[in-house]
């Protein structure tokens, strides 16, 4: 019996000593939530993480900012493949059930991380003041950027500036949040812009070879935002033309700080070049983009289409190495609108024809990356968010609002575009009426910014001589006699909110026009 006593006391001891500590285990390969936000390296790493996530959302520029803007084909492609985002996005047939994108296109996940960063960086005390305010400048800039994307798409949206999911035990009800009005949302964006600008102060450093948000990015965003509110009425917020002057001031801070690259193609092949203000960095082995889906797959292309001179295309002209497929295609009219001497035309598209020489379709080639050392095609072009050409063309747009001469701005762009072919008399733009100028600026942007996610926002923002958005102007739609939206479809400028998002938050209401 003594034996038992010993055994029992041994186990009792074992239980008592080991229970607590033996069961406290923490991850060995990564930070748990208990050991983060302790060092400057972590904070700076998180800023890189925010950019990584931003890059992960890059397709929003095409999907939300370009696809429905009248330059993209819908239905089936010239290669008989079915095209992505055809309906309701590219053909503008939104209904409450067909929303194209859902869950705010996922942008609140990005905002959660940005909000967490702002919250934590304000709390920690190990950062020196300069580092801290620079990082906050970046973070508020990023946040304003996301909210502006949401604003342009949905109008007023729920304004979330705190990570409530980390505040103790969660219930769904405590997280329900109604949409702010357009006015409130815009006020919030402008407030963030102001904080960002002030936090950066005079620090205009751009980190990561222009792959990180900087004061110039904030200024560009500010210009975009104020130009938008100068021209576009949304919800309860009426356009205020005087905002254009604020936009102009912001642009003037950037003006002359960057310059146009000599060669149009170099803008996209050289990372962080002098024209780039801010770009999402893509790299072989790290991240590639979806430009492949604008090209061709050999089996429906080679030997089946003809070149400009009637020659059968039977070799892999773009050296895609079978990495491509056509899931998105630009309209032929966009190509046709470009002058043969404008180098942008052949830098942007590979045009092909049928046996009779009739136009057939366009493969995209502006940003199709490189052949890497293994001999594979890698779609590693940066997605350029802001570049200097945009500064010039925004300035032109502001100039047109105030009745000035837009031609110097447009012609800087054209001079670079025509390169050796440039002849100011033949190709130069001469200032015209407001209506002519606005169209000229739009068409210049069309040629310049293909795939850069601007077209839809451009046609919404820009106005014809009658002061109407170009969305309703048939002249700006390619290959289609109709405007992008008819007047009675005006509600469709704002996107519908998908049913799941509405169901998951009873306080949300859909945009007008999508009630049933």
């Amino acid at each position: 019996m003594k034996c038992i006593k010993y055994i029992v006391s041994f186990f009792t001891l074992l239980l008592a000593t080991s229970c607590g500590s033996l069961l406290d285990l923490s991850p060995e390969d990564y930070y748990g939530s208990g050991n983060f936000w302790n060092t400057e390296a972590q904070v700076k790493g998180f800023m890189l993480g925010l950019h990584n996530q931003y890059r992960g959302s890059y397709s929003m520029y095409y999907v939300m900012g370009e696809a429905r803007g009248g330059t993209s084909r819908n239905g089936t492609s010239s290669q008989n493949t079915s095209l992505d985002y055809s309906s309701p996005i590219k053909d503008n047939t939104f209904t409450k059930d067909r929303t194209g994108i859902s869950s705010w296109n996922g942008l609140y996940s990005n905002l959660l991380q940005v909000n967490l960063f702002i919250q934590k960086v304000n709390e920690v005390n190990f950062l020196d003041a300069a580092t801290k305010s620079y990082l906050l400048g970046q973070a508020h800039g990023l946040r304003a950027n996301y909210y502006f994307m949401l604003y342009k798409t949905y109008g007023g949206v729920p304004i979330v500036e705190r990570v409530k999911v980390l505040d103790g035990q969660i219930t769904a009800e405590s997280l329900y949040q109604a949409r702010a009005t357009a006015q409130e949302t815009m006020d919030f964006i402008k407030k963030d812009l102001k904080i960002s600008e002030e936090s950066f102060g005079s620090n205009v450093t751009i980190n990561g070879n222009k792959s990180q948000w900087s004061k110039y990015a904030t200024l560009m965003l500010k210009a975009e935002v104020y130009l938008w509110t100068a021209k576009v009425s949304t919800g309860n917020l009426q356009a205020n033309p005087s905002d254009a002057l604020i936009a102009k001031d912001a642009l003037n801070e950037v003006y002359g700080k960057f310059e146009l690259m000599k060669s149009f193609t170099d803008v996209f092949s050289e990372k962080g070049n002098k024209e780039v203000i801010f770009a999402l960095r893509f790299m072989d082995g790290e991240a590639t983009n979806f430009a492949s889906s604008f090209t061709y797959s050999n089996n429906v292309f080679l030997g089946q289409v003809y070149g400009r001179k009637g020659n059968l295309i039977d070799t892999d002209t773009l050296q895609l190495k079978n990495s491509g497929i056509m899931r998105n295609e630009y309209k032929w009219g966009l190509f046709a609108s470009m002058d043969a001497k404008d180098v942008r035309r052949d830098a942007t598209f590979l045009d092909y024809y049928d046996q009779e020489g009739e136009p057939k379709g366009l493969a995209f080639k502006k940003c199709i990356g490189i052949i890497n050392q293994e001999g594979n095609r890698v779609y590693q072009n940066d997605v350029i968010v802001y570049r200097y050409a945009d500064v010039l063309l925004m300035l032109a747009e502001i100039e047109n609002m105030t009745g000035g001469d837009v031609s110097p701005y447009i012609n800087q762009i054209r001079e670079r575009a025509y390169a050796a072919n440039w002849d100011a008399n033949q190709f130069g733009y001469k200032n015209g009426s407001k209506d002519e100028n606005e169209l000229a600026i739009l068409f210049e942007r069309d040629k310049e910014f293909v795939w850069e996610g601007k077209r839809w926002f451009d046609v919404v923002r820009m106005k014809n001589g009658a002061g109407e958005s170009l969305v309703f102007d048939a002249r700006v739609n390619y290959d289609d006699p109709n405007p992008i939206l008819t007047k009675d479809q005006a509600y469709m400028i704002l996107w519908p909110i998908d049913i799941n998002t509405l169901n998951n938050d009873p306080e949300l209401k859909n945009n007008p026009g999508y009630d049933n």
Partner: protein
Amino acid sequence: MKKQLLIFLLMLTSLAMYAQNKQIKGVVYDTQNEPIIGASVVEDGTTNGTVTDLDGNFQLSVKPNSKLKVTYVGYVPAIVNVGNNMSLTIVLKEDSEQLEEVVVTGYGGKQLRTKTTNSIAKVKEEVFANGVFSNPAQALSGAVAGLRVVQSSGNPGAAPSIVLRGGTNLNGTGSPLILVDGQFRESLSDINPEDIESMEVMKDAGATAIYGARANNGVILITTKRGKAGISEINVKAKVGLNYLTNPYDFMDGRDYLYWMRKAYQNSAQMFKKGDGSWVGITNLNSLDGATPYGTGNLYWADANKTIPLDGNKDNRAVWSPMNYTPDLAFLLNQGWETMIDPVYGKEIIFRNWDMGKNNINSPALTQDYNISFTGGSEKGSYYAGLGYNHTEGLPLDNYYQRISFTINADYKIREWLTSYSNFSFADAKWRGLPPTSADEANYFSRMLSAPPTLRGHNANGELLLGVNSGDGNQAVNIKNFIRKNNTDKFTLGQSFRIEFMKSLSLKVSGSWYYDEGYYESFNKDYLSSPGNVNVSRNSSAEFQRSLNQTYNAVLNYDQTFNKNHQISALAGIEYYDKYISGFNASGSGAPTDDFGDLGLTSKDKDKRNIDSWHQRERIFSGFARVNYDFMNKYLLSAVVREDGYSRLLGSNRWGVFPGISAGWLIGNESFMSGTKDIISFAKLRTSFGLNGNVSDIGPYELQGSYGTNRYNGDIGYLLNNIPNPFLRWEKSHTFEVGADISFLENKINANFTYYDRLTKGKYANIQLPASSGLSSIRSNNGEIQNRGIEVELGFKVLSTKDWSWNINANVAYNKNIIKKLPKNGLERNRQNAFQVYNPKTKELMWVGGYQEGQEPGQIYGFKYEGVYKSYDEIPGGLVDKTSGNNGSNGLVLYGPDAWAKLPEGQKVKSNGMAAALPIQPGDAKWKDVNGDGVIDNYDMVKIGNSTPRWTGGITSMLKWKDLTFNARFDYGLGFTVVDWRTPWIMGNMQGTFNSLVDSKDTWTPENPNAKYPTYVWADQLGKRNYARQSSKFMYNGNYLAIRELTLTYSLPSFLLRHAKINRLELSVTGQNLGYITAAKGVFSPEKSDNNGGYPLPKSVIFGLNLSF
């Protein structure tokens, strides 16, 4: 002096005994007075013995006053005193199996079946005897009432899913805890069924509470074979099987494909006419002239002189065979090419038929399974050693599983009070999955095999052609270029000591290591990715992972009978479990040569190599106790309790206490029942209640949250990957059950009935969060699910005569799950993922499907298919179809004839000339308009059924005639619906170039107005969605009866074997997985409700040999 005297006396006696050995005769009968042949007659305590002959007679020379032990399979062993008898008549009683059976109850506990108060089902080794099982779980289909085993993959080594009593997860999943000799295992994979002595399935919480926090989905206890005193045997088993494909898809040949595909294009391009008389559709006819699988633009010659043939592995235009027939191609007709008339343009087309299956299916595939085991034992010690080899080929190319296993279990009584139990087992498994370019099982069998049958097959040099690309093409072309090595080694090392302090009190201390390591290598040599494109990435990777599971426990046992009437059996113990996983992998690409996969050769350029390592630990600390009390052999009581502390949970949520209690009443032993003894030979009532936990869904560190790493611009970045969730607790399952075990007519009929009710509270359920929170959902303990059901097991001894015996066992289980509670979300019934349809009665919208409180999960809704419109007269003129369709449908609106006529042309035709809307025409499907508003929309779906069978079970039969035995095993699932997603994808031509089923010949055409199916069109999802929607046409009643195993065994008579000193020699032939009797014919497996194609279970024929000596 005394000692010497004693020795002398002993010598005398033994001499005397020797001298007085006598010869006795005897005969052995069964209770029907039929002689028993081959019964073993042994002088008890010696090896002196014999067997009975054809008439049941035996002769043996024995010591006087010795005892004879007479045994025969299926009968209760008899021990007979020889006494002064010279001739004996011994009657063996049939073993009333169920009643003498012992069940294992965990932690070394054993209990007579008659005394259990719980639902513990025993799966005996006979279940594994006939078929070949690369995974022992495959043998469990239908074996245990309430245990649903779904074998939805024929991949050798695939682990079937096992769900007990409906599962505790909201979606009806949840796997039992698996313990092999007390050691936790993730699955039943890589266990040799031959090493299994018994498998117990513990169902009710009164029993499983001893396993506490991990046992709410039941426990499977596996006990491996050990040696037994007095038996010494060598057993050799060999099984060789042939496995045949059972393909549900009957694809068209090249000729029919061309005819129907070209018609399909025409049907899709010419859907209606514009005002100017030109055709409008959803495509045009251009590709019919192109270099496509169905187009005539393919080329044979590379040059204008027509001397050099094009190579289809280099040029896309020479992949497919169809071409307009020209005389220069006539020579091809001698090479197997054919011609036909184009149904669209009327020209002659030359083409070649190609059968992708012939090149990509290895049927029959060969299975080999060999085992040899040695077992022996004495009073002191015993041992079992088994060596096994299984090699099973799969149906796809180079797909196989191979297992080599070795087990040795040895027990030895070192001292009177100390016994040692050692076990060692080793299993080496190697396998290769499907070809890497078509690794998805569903794709392999229903997509790749549906590739166009107009592939040229070979180029002019006789080399195999790939086809469109490596994924959808002929896998045989590249298979040799993919090096894949998967190898796991699993070791179990266990040592226990049992210390007997006194007869009633003992302590068992055990330690067990289960070490599992895996090494995986993959290397791609240069391969053809599509015609003319060779992938030269030369990706190479290697991964190693090891996991060590350590279990230590100490269990104190106490067994005592007081006053004859009070019998107590108790145990108490503690246990410590630690699992540590560590591993690393590395990969690279761009080696200068494809001859070697050596990672050292891969390119050293930036970002060309990846490496990673990982670690993960979890621990459980537990204390437990059990008491079984038996009063007067009539009243039984059992109580168990366990406390668990689990490292996955945090803070005070970590600890949980799980009690269980059960009681039984052997009512048959009561005196008032004695009158009915002839009818009711045994009766017991039992009930139990208990609490279990579950935490299996939670990752080891998940609740702590994590900051994950990523890269941007070449640097390391961080993001909050998972938010911390420290509030999560155990799920707690409360199970109540009541049951009766009753035997009739001298145990000729054994039956047991159980009703259970399991309510899982604190169920992990996702709270759907508003999207603006940045998270889509978060896990909480706010769910509640109830499983309720009835289980019945029946055993019949139908026949039992000298030559004949026939036993039938059957079980049936009914289960229904109801979701009782979900996280509050402000919606009616706190529904999640529900959708709206019209209520067929009120015509109002109602929320259905998804998860809803008070409802059964897994409801299936679909559009009710009411046949094909044969003529315009049948189509309601104003009908409008606004459904959105599936498979990437563009949801064009469809209009009935009158509505169509009213529609302005601008709304019918897009600016690009394609259809913007479509007319409903003869040949289109008729859908039920539930609310009768003349509009078919997404709300017009009706309830078709439910995804989980309500009824499951199995039937086995053993019929024996002399030396022949016929075994049959069936299992079934009833009361559910199978949704076939794959057939409509194929028949709707949704890929756009692929082959269709022969069934498509019975699609509507003007010539075949009574067809079974709607018009065959190209890309139905872009058109009228006759196939591309959830349609009742492709939802089947899933009721099935699986013909799992039929075996004929011939046992060579023992009188033949005796001289060769062979105990037993059996030859058998088995048909395994012979098919299903079911209405769900279009699917690869009716066992799977959500069915998008897959790897069908092969039909197997197995030849077996079983030899013991």
